[in-house]
């Protein structure tokens, strides 16, 4: 039993969406609306309560003579998004019921038998992943296939992925692999390749890393995701001041009032 992670390498992703479907098939997740978006071939939009894997389609300008894999061009990039399973997870810390737990594999898991749908995790996720299913009432997101991992199986998305763009394994090994892959890609001329793994922010790194070409913001990957617990100190300090002001103010007001009343 080791701590595991995803490494989603968008330079290998062909945008087939097998991960989306395999995830839904395994987890019994329903469809997410039958609307055409016009955002390239992305008709899902984002991860949410009813989409736990989501392939993004980033179109740029193709030029004849340069395929999308050419180092000079990154013309149509695909990247499969998923819950980041943060090292410091906002949803996990926020959950008041203990429904969200950290598993032995390092994943962040919402226990469906506990969640009461308070919705606090929704506003605590810096990646906009977890969402309340309004029909069901509970919050849902990628389970990291905790059930499969428990018996040593690979998560459904990683298993299905035809080109092994979604890799799954021990987190340390994957981090090393990501670095090696980055060096290799840069060596091939893809100087715009980067690894997205926010280790230097309060999120402290994630169990879902990404290799993308170009600015991660293009893929809706925030440059500085923060776990909201960093605001707690300031918030409670403010709360204490507010309480002190209330207590002091009230005391002063009533004491002064009493004095004036000549008591």
């Amino acid at each position, binding site marked *: 039993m080791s701590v595991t992670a995803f490494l989603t390498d968008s330079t290998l992703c062909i945008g087939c969406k097998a991960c989306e479907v395999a995830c839904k098939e395994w987890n019994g997740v329903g469809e997410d609306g039958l609307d055409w978006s016009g955002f390239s071939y992305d008709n899902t939009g984002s991860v949410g309560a009813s989409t736990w894997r989501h392939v993004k389609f980033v179109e740029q300008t193709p030029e004849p003579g340069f395929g999308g894999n050419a180092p000079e061009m990154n013309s149509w990039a695909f990247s499969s998004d998923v819950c980041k399973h943060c090292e410091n997870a906002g949803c996990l810390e926020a959950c008041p019921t203990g429904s969200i737990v950290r598993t032995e594999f390092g994943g962040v898991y919402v*226990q469906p038998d506990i969640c009461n749908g308070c919705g606090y995790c929704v506003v605590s996720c810096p990646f906009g992943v977890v969402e309340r299913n309004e029909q069901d009432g509970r919050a849902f997101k990628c389970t990291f296939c905790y059930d499969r991992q428990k018996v040593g199986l690979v998560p459904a998305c990683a298993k299905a992925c035809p080109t092994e763009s979604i890799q799954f394994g021990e987190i340390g090994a994957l981090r090393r692999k990501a670095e090696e892959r980055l060096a290799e890609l840069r060596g091939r001329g893809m100087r715009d390749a980067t690894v997205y793994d926010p280790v230097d922010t309060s999120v402290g790194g994630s169990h879902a890393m990404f290799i993308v070409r170009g600015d991660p913001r293009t893929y809706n990957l925030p440059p500085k995701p923060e776990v909201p617990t960093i605001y707690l100190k300031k918030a409670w300090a403010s709360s204490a001041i507010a309480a002190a002001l209330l207590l002091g103010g009230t005391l002063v007001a009533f004491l002064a009032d009493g004095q004036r009343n000549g008591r």
Partner: protein
Amino acid sequence: MLNDLLSRWPLIRQLQTGADGTGAEAMTEHTRNLRPKHYGAEVTRSICPYCGVGCGQLVYHRDGKLISIEGDPESPISRGHLCPKGADTYELHTHSGRQTKVKYRRPYSRRWEEIDLESAMDMVADRLWDTRDRTFQETRHGASLMQTKAIGHLGGATLDNEENYLIKKLFSAGLGMVCISNQARI
């Protein structure tokens, strides 16, 4: 009893261990005993029904019911991977839009009727026999012809070799139908 209840209260576990309520202490029995849905199920080897690549599939089932269909890691073709269509094979078999009864539409009717399978087979056999009998040409200008052009068949690329074999054998070699075609052009 109360003791048992208390011992299952994560707060008590929290107080005992000083944990922060995010780990094992907050897990339920259900979570602790979580197993994949196909745990211990029967598995049958199959092949993906969609395109011509021929990816291996593992069909998990229990008590005659499908549980899940996923890639076969042993396949030298697919190595366990599937595309979005292949990954949806379970839904293909289990979705609510599947037909399970023979539907029949009478001439000039505006609606379907459900009929039972054996009668439907008899009806089709009767029509096939009748049309063939009326349209069959044994010879033309004294040369062997042995055909009917009044009945056609279309389809085969989604079917099994054995099925295609029986179609060609019965329709062509047995009944003399020549208008037989499918998706393939070779």
